[in-house]
Structure formats: C-alpha cells, structure tokens
C-alpha cells in the first residue's frame, strides 16, 4: 500500500543524497592544490553519471535481487520486470522505484569517497575502469550481503542502518589499499601540500552535512519516528565530533582550525551512519566524541608514523569512522529506539557486538583483497598513476586540458 508521505520523504531524501556527491567534490576539491581541483571535481561528477547508468543496468540487480547467493544475480538486468508497486522486502509503503533511486545515490557516493586516497596522481582513464570494476565487484556484493533480501550477513543479524559497513568500511578499506598501492605523491617530504581553498572545503562539508539527513533519516524509508531519531542522532554526532576535534587541536596545536572542525564533523557523520536509527540521542553525543578522538589519532598520529599517503584522509576519516560506528551499534543499540533493531552490550546483550565485529572483519578482508587485485590488474593493463611530469604539471591540464583559475582577468 503506497503511502504518499513516505514516498515524498524518500524521494526528497534521494535528492539530498544526490547532492552529497557534488558536496564531496567541493570538500575534496578544496583540499587539493589548485592544479588538481578540476581533476577532483571531474572524478566526482563523472561517477555520478557512470554509476547511475551502472545501477539501472545491472548494479541494482546484483545488490538487491532476493537471493541467498554471493550477489543478487542479473534477473533484474535493466530493471526488467520491476513495476511501480512497492517491494515489501525492502519498503512496503513506497513505489519500488523510489527505493531503487535512493539506493542508487549510495552506490554513486561510495566509490567517490575513494577519490580522496589517490587524489592528485591517478590517471583518469584508469580511474574510470577501476571505479566501475570496484562498484561491481566490491560495492554490489557487499551491499547484497548486508542489505539485500537473503544476504548472508543480513540473515546473520548484522545491523547497518545507513551504510557504516556497506558505504564507509568498503570505501575506507579501498582507500587504504589505493594509497598504499599507488604510492606517495612526489615532493611530499619537503613540500607538504596545503589545501588550496578552505572555503570550498567548508561549502562541501555544509552540503555533506545537509545531504546526510537524507542519507541517515531517509534510510528509515518512511516518514516515521525512526527517521526522526536518525535525524537527531546524525546532527548530534556531527556537532559533538566537530566540537571535539577543534578542542583536540586547540590543546595539541595551540589553535583550533576550520579545517579540523570540518574534518571532525565529517568523522562524526560517518561514524553515526550505521548507528543513527538504533541509538539514542545521548548515545550519539558519545559516539561523536569517540569518532573525533579515534579519527584524530588515525589521521594525526598513525598515518604519519606508517607513512602512507592517503592524500585527503579517505581511510582515516571515512573508513575508521565507519568501522568504529559499526562496532558501536553493538554497544549502544537499543530496542527502545527501534524495535526492529537489537539491544547492544550496554543494554544487556553482548551478542550483537560480536555479530558487528564479525561482519566488519569479513568485509574488511574481502574489500582489502578484491581492491588490491583490481588495482594491480588495472595497473598491469593501463598503469594507474600519471607520469612524474604530468603529476608535477597537475591533473587539470594533463588529464582534462583545462585550468580552474586564470592569472589575469
């Protein structure tokens, strides 16, 4: 039975999530040097095009056709046989197409998150091939396991409200692999690249925060109390995390920065994502604080020690946030918020924590392996990294023959 309120809510949430990919483009675009800003914007926008097509052709079928297999298979190829009636497996009160569209935006932004790891040095053609392969062989299967009807992790009882595993763990781990395989940017040691436009980063963060209401509250797939809870926990965690990061900076570096505050809010948003529909607002405060502390350590302490060049901290913020958020579902989840969820460790049941831990572990290993193989494969056939000269000249000119800014006029 179609409910008009639910349908309107999900469609608008879909549009909000769509806006997150351009938001991410600005978020990342501001962080790179000005010779690479168009490269980043282009990578984000082209994924919006490329993966929208992949999704309606076969991505949705692989991810969501009811099946107990490794993926959903190709029965719904080209959305064949899908009418406008609701699909009660996923959302009983909205037309099936509203669900497809909503999930499409998740499938788009997930590979886009990885752009932050190899920013400023990946060849555009190799990027396209890698992204489509990764979406098909990592995102679609994992999405099926966790969210698809019959998916084995779903059957096991794992809880991932809006994508802590499906979106942030997969993209985060792929980012770590990407940064390690592609190697450091040139001249990094004596010339630390500084973000060329922090106001862009702020605008991008604003769009991401705004879009995240669609991402998390929309994941309730109805205009109901769970959606409202997710809305509140999302904003609360973002606020607590932004505040925490700026305080950490203030203590450690003497001054709080806008860049740190923005990074903190994104860490908080990524971390609350899997938990948003299962935890209380007060728990979201704690989750936000923990998110910033852990991501701060990952980005500011662990990364420099290990020496990998995750240019824009796709792993350190999204990956780490997604993983700890998923684990915290096992601690803070309560049926008082969402009866279809579970009680976590702090509400008297330790079982859920171990399910969450197991699911993260499995997805961690699977994503690590497949992402690594895909990188090596693409590298073998078309070399993933641009030449040294191209890297020094910047991706804007060498990959797209365009400059973002003029000197005169």
């Amino acid at each position: 039975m179609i409910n008009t309120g639910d349908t309107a809510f999900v469609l608008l949430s879909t549009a909000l999530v769509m806006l997150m990919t351009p938001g991410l483009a600005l978020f990342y675009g501001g962080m790179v040097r000005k010779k690479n800003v168009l490269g980043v914007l282009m990578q984000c926008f082209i994924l919006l095009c490329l993966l929208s097509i992949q999704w309606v052709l076969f991505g949705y079928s692989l991810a969501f056709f009811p099946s107990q297999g490794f993926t959903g298979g190709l029965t719904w190829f080209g959305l064949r046989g899908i009418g406008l009636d609701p699909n009660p497996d996923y959302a009983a009160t909205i037309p099936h197409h509203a669900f497809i569209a909503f999930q499409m935006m998740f499938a788009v932004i997930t590979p886009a998150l990885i752009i932050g790891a190899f920013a400023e040095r990946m060849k555009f053609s190799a990027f396209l091939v890698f992204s489509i392969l990764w979406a098909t062989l990592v995102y679609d299967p994992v999405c099926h396991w966790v969210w698809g009807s019959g998916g084995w992790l779903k059957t096991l009882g794992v809880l991932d409200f809006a994508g802590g595993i499906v979106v942030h763990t997969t993209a985060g781990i792929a980012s770590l692999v990407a940064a390690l395989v592609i190697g450091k940017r040139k001249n990094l040691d004596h010339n630390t690249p500084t973000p060329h436009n922090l106001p862009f980063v702020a605008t991008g963060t604003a769009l991401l925060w705004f879009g995240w209401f669609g991402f998390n509250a929309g994941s309730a797939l109805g205009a109901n109390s769970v959606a409202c809870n997710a809305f509140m926990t999302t904003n609360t965690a973002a606020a607590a995390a932004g505040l925490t990061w700026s305080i950490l900076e203030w203590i450690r570096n003497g001054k709080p920065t806008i860049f740190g505050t923005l990074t903190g809010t994104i860490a908080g948003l990524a971390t609350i994502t899997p938990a948003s529909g299962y935890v209380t607002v007060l728990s979201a405060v704690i989750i936000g604080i923990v998110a910033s502390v852990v991501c701060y350590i990952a980005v500011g302490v662990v990364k420099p020690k290990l020496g990998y060049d995750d240019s824009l901290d796709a792993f350190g913020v999204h990956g780490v946030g997604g993983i700890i958020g998923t684990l915290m579902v096992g601690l803070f989840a309560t049926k008082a918020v969402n009866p279809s969820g579970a009680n976590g460790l702090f509400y008297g049941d330790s079982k859920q924590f171990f399910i969450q831990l197991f699911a993260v572990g499995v997805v961690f290993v699977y994503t690590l392996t497949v992402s690594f193989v895909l990188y090596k494969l693409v590298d073998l056939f078309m070399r993933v990294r641009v030449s040294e000269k191209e890297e020094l000249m910047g991706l804007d000119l060498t990959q797209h023959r365009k400059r973002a800014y003029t000197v005169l006029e």
Partner: protein
Amino acid sequence: MKLIIAIIQPYKLEDVKDELYKAGVNLITVSEVLGHGRQKGITEVYRGAKETGNLLRKIRLEIAVNDSFVEPTVKAIIKGAKTGETGDGKIFVVPLEDCVRIRTGEKGAVAVG
C-alpha cells in the same frame, strides 16, 4: 651585486628550488606570471591556455646575489629548469645598484646576504 630574474616552467619550480638550495642560495622571490616567447603560446600540454589569449603561465624568480654567487645561481637554475624543449624559459642577469635590509638599515653586499 646582480639581480637574477629567471622565467621558468611552473612544473619545474620544485626542481629549481632544490638546485638553488644545493648551491647555497636560499633567498628567492617567486611570482606567477604570464607571457610567451618563441613557442607563441601553443604547446601540446598548454592547450588549455587558449583562454588567456595564448599567454602561457610561467614562474618568475627574482634572486639578488653578490658577484661570486652569480655563476652558481645561474647554473643551478639551468640544471633545475632545463628539459631541452621550447618553453624552458630565460635567465636575465641585471646589475644591481644597491640593496637595503629594512629591519636593520644595512646596505650593499651585507644586505644581499
């Protein structure tokens, strides 16, 4: 005292800076400029520059040095900036009448440092 002005390819700036540091030259001023020489504003890689009326983006270095540093500085710039292709740039060596360090009022060779 001489003022050395060099126009180089932007992507060679890091290499030139490295060579200058090796030669013991640390005091440089860098600016972004537009211009064109023999290549007339069109090379394969700079096609995007059409938008700015065929003027190419270059980097200008200004380095004031004492006479004994002129040769090492010029050599360092060449070493860092040379690719052998049209568009590598030019170096101008200009006589420098005086130099004043604002903080102390020192003049001449001491101020050039």
